């Protein structure tokens, strides 16, 4: 028990140290590198908190994809960073803000220490009703059955987020290819990696989705891995991102939410409530929704990272300059 506590304490110190680095590092690029390491350490914390599903999502999304996004932005914004340091608030203001933020942290710490015991919990209720869904993983059960409205809204909200990113293109850029992921220089090891890794990555991603019904895993974790493989191929320059006017791509972006809404609406007739599943078909219907959502979430995550579309001549120029 005590050795576990020592490991936990060391983990907490590392996490807090990296958080300090992210806040205090001089260059944004260094802070973004710190954020990737921070996400990986948080993954370990989630495993220690017996939340393996969350740990997978944190590793793939919180650390991997967010890290890539922030690293790319830091590299693009580096030329404008010099004048930021001039704008730092004065010492007195910083101390004042520090004291107030410490007070907020202390308040939250007090809440953590005063949490009621025994803790209120839905765990038994979930476990009692899980057999009706035909699933073995309680987290998937919550996502797909008991709180399906949350999951539906979340999968729908990803589409407006992508529309938001796309609408930041210039007028000339509309209909072109996304411009954030320009291919790396030729002669680097990345194209080789992008040929060797994706077959395994795609297998792992699909396995995560399939196994998510009964074991830790699920569509979001699987989709994040699949999106990472797609991004790797795009960054290595083996495939160009599709133009935003591509109709097939647009269909893939919405097929998951449409499938979810369609099955949910059918539930009104067949099971008496929106998003209710008729008991005999619960498992196959959930699997169908998960498959559709995996496709859509993969496409959205990849395209969110690929950024707003740029005019075709600019895209070609960027690719040539880098290769």
């Amino acid at each position, binding site marked *: 028990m005590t050795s576990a506590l020592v490991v936990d304490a060391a983990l907490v110190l590392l996490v807090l140290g990296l958080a300090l680095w*992210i806040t205090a590092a001089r260059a944004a690029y260094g802070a973004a590198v710190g954020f990737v390491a921070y996400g990986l350490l948080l993954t370990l914390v989630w495993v220690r908190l*017996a939340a393996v599903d969350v740990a997978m999502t944190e590793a793939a999304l919180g650390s991997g994809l967010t890290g890539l996004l922030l690293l790319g932005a830091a590299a693009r*914004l580096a030329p404008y960073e010099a004048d930021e340091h001039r704008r730092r608030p004065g010492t007195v203001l910083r101390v004042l803000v520090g004291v107030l*933020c410490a007070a907020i942290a202390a308040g939250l710490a007090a809440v953590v220490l005063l*949490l009621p015991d025994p803790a209120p919990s*839905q765990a038994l209720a979930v*476990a009692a009703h899980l057999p009706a869904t035909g699933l073995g993983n309680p987290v998937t059960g919550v996502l797909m059955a008991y*709180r399906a409205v949350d999951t539906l809204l979340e999968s729908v909200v990803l589409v407006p987020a992508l529309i938001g990113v796309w609408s930041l293109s210039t007028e000339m850029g509309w209909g072109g290819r996304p411009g954030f992921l320009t291919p790396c220089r030729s002669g680097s090891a990345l194209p080789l990696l992008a040929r060797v890794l994706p077959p395994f990555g795609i297998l792992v991603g699909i396995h995560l989705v399939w196994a998510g019904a009964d074991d830790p895993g699920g569509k979001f974790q699987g989709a994040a891995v699949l999106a990472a493989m797609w991004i790797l191929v795009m960054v290595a320059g083996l495939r160009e991102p599709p133009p935003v006017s591509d109709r097939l791509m647009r269909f893939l972006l919405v097929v998951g939410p449409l499938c979810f809404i369609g099955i949910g609406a059918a539930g009104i007739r067949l099971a008496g409530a929106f998003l209710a599943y008729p008991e005999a078909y619960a498992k196959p219907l959930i699997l169908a929704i998960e498959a559709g959502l995996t496709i859509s979430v993969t496409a959205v995550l990849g395209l969110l990272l690929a950024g707003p579309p740029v005019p075709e001549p600019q895209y070609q120029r960027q690719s040539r300059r880098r290769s």
Partner: protein
Amino acid sequence: MSGTTLFGLCAAALVGLGLYGLICQPGALRKILAFNLIGSGVFLLFGVIAQRGGGVLALAGTGADGDPVPQALVITGLVVAFAATAIAVTLLVRLAETSARGTLEGDEPPAPESSDARRT
């Protein structure tokens, strides 16, 4: 003190640290990073509550997992946080390209708004 409580205190410190960075860092990208720190602190608090809620499962002898409801909410939250970060970062890059600055202050007259800046 148990490991779970320790992680809870860590989460509280992360929220405080992130809030400080959000207010005191002048660069907008640093503010986005700090906001993600706050987010991870909040998610971690959820994780601590989920882990404590799993105690009833251990009492019932059916496993040592956490409460799946907060865990599922965190997974939902992580995906939405990524989408929000992507929008914020894209907005910021566009702001830097059109006005040649990476901060949010508007006290200087912005550089002449031009679509040429992007084409050159």
